[in-house]
């Protein structure tokens, strides 16, 4: 390809677009469904009778950050969302909105990074779309991905299934992604070794389901962090959730950056972490299963689901090392603009 940047013609539907797709996307994704060149990718789905479907759009800035890029994020984010249903994730679609003038080398890097993440997750990108908008109408590249998976028979995970006595697990350290992005922001750049945790967690979820088949639910604590995820669980199940502040894994560097920026690590975004709620009897098995997977080595049990006291609304509370408690609210507005 001779052009160095995205031109309006790359979205024209003509030869330039075909070349862009062939030389960047097909080359990277290399799936038979794409090579077939049809408008729809047709794939097999074993007939369990149920599918899981999820979609997400990615507008992160900067597009390249320590530990990943928008491409890796776009694959991992959707894979993880589909996987939280307990489904085996099979296929992804991807839609690109490209800004005129965007460097094609960067686009190629992003496509390869998506292919790499898809390989790791064992999913195939089977259909896609490309649009080009005029310079100034978008910020480089936006990606939408949709994922499809098959839900094995008998599995019915739900945020509304949390029961008093259940145990809350996280798959590793919190806040890495949000702080890694923040450290790159214009006007706020600071030196740190923190890298984004963006990772596909479908294999981790499968391992937990195997070890703890009565798991109530999973959720990846992305925007809003652990605080939002647990509040959503509490609300959906009409329970209280209590976590032990000292048990929540947070890297010292993330803690330090949060101190500096005035953030609560429990409200900072993650892109490669999973929260699971499991019955007490299966908690140890779930924890061990997580720790045996690549992205779960630092998994920890961080709290419990509690009965709601009469007259109280569902809530999440944090217990400190000295026995004090406080409410953990969802983030109100914007903390880190556009981080995923």
């Amino acid at each position, binding site marked *: 390809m001779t052009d160095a940047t995205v031109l309006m013609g790359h979205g024209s539907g003509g030869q330039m677009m075909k070349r862009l797709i062939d030389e960047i996307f097909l080359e990277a994704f290399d799936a038979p469904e794409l090579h077939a060149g049809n408008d729809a990718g047709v794939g097999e789905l074993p007939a369990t009778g149920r599918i899981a479907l999820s979609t997400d759009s990615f507008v992160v800035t900067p597009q390249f950050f320590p530990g990943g890029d928008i491409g890796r994020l776009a694959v991992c984010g959707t894979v993880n969302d589909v996987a939280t249903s307990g489904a085996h994730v099979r296929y992804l679609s991807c839609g690109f909105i490209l800004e005129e003038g965007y460097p094609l080398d960067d686009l190629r890097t992003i496509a390869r990074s998506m292919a790499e993440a898809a390989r790791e997750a064992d999913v195939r990108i089977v259909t896609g779309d490309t649009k080009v908008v005029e310079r100034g109408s978008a910020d480089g590249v936006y990606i939408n991905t949709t994922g499809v998976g098959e839900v094995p028979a008998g599995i019915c995970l739900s945020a509304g299934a949390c029961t008093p006595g259940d145990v809350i697990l996280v798959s590793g350290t919190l806040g890495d992604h949000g702080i890694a992005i923040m450290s790159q922001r214009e006007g706020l750049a600071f030196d740190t070794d923190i890298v984004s945790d963006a990772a596909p967690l479908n294999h981790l979820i499968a391992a937990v389901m195997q070890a703890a088949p009565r798991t109530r639910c999973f959720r990846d604590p992305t925007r809003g962090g652990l605080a939002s995820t647990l509040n959503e669980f509490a609300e959906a199940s009409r329970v209280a959730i209590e976590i032990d502040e000292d048990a929540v894994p947070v890297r010292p560097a993330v803690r*330090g950056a949060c101190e500096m920026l005035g953030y609560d690590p429990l409200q900072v975004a993650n892109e490669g972490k999973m929260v699971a709620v499991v019955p007490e009897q299966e908690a140890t098995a779930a924890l061990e299963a997580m720790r045996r997977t690549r992205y779960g080595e630092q998994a920890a049990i961080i709290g419990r689901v509690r009965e709601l006291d009469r007259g109280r609304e569902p809530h999440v509370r944090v217990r400190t090392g000295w026995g004090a408690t406080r*409410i953990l609210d969802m983030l*109100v507005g914007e903390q880190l603009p556009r981080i995923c």
Partner: protein
Amino acid sequence: MSMSTTRTDQTIDFAAFRDPHVVRELIARIRNRVGERQINLMEVCGTHTMSIGRYGFRSVLPPGLKLLSGPGCPVCVTANRDIDHAIALARLDDVIVATFGDMMRVPGSTTSLAAEKAAGRDVRIVYSPLDVLDLARAHPDRQVVFISVGFETTTPAMAACLLEAADRASDNFSMFCANKMTPAALRAIAGDPETRIDGFILPGHVSTITGLSPYRFLVDEFGLPGVVTGFEPTDILEGVSLLVDMVAEGKPAIVNAYRRGVRTEGNPVARALVDQVFEPVDAVWRGLGTLPSSGLRIKPELSRYDAAVRFDVDTETTVEPAGCRCGDVLRGRITPEGCPLFDRICTPEHAVGPCMVSSEGSCAAYFRYRS
């Protein structure tokens, strides 16, 4: 600025200051010492307010010991008229207004900077005043106005920024200065017959600049103790413990319990920088009214950088939000829960007053960390 060279993984090890055993011991000690007494302490630093909430101290300290939150959040004490003035500046053609994030959502009389931004005005969030100079350089055809708020800790950076602007002979940069000085507010509260404060948790960051001498009047004129403390759990509890001791024994003093950060004489270099650029002026504080020599304005010889002088704007008639008791909260007359709007009409999502907007505001801290 310095952030670009900060290595977050080489900061002080916080663990020792958060040791649960030490914290429990300090709590037990304070409980014993307070006994049946009624003691009101006030912290006058927004970061202390947030820390006390985050550590959940109100749920474990004895009921007779009240920790009241004073005027420690620079956004919260900014008068409505100053917010309106900033908004009027943002409405000028060809003006970019730059300010800290917390200022964006503070309601003025009828609107906020955030609402003005949504309506098409150019309002930018900056993290450092020096970013504003870069903004001015990047937009030579427009005027860039920095809305400056802050106490003694932030003012030296504003002074450095303004001197840098003068150095660069920057023609399109100016500053609207609503900076304030802490001791004046302490005096107003110590002398307020409706607020019964027995001692002050003095601000750690501010004191790094001011040193201890500006607080001596608390002992000399009002017989009140004060302790400068840091922000970790053991820092704050040690400060509370020292204050409770002094109250119980009737021996008030100004004590520095934050020696790793604060020197007795403060930072004279930073103060000299401030004196070079600013001069004291009577200032209106939300809730406290006009306090003599409590604010700062840009010296006349630098007035070309003073947005209040440079731009003639129509500021709308100041309207205070109905029912909002931020003023009484800032004086320590009531806790946020004592305001009829708290958690009913006024929440962080729909804030009526500034104490609920700013992340360091008393009402936001009480709301966020209620137990």
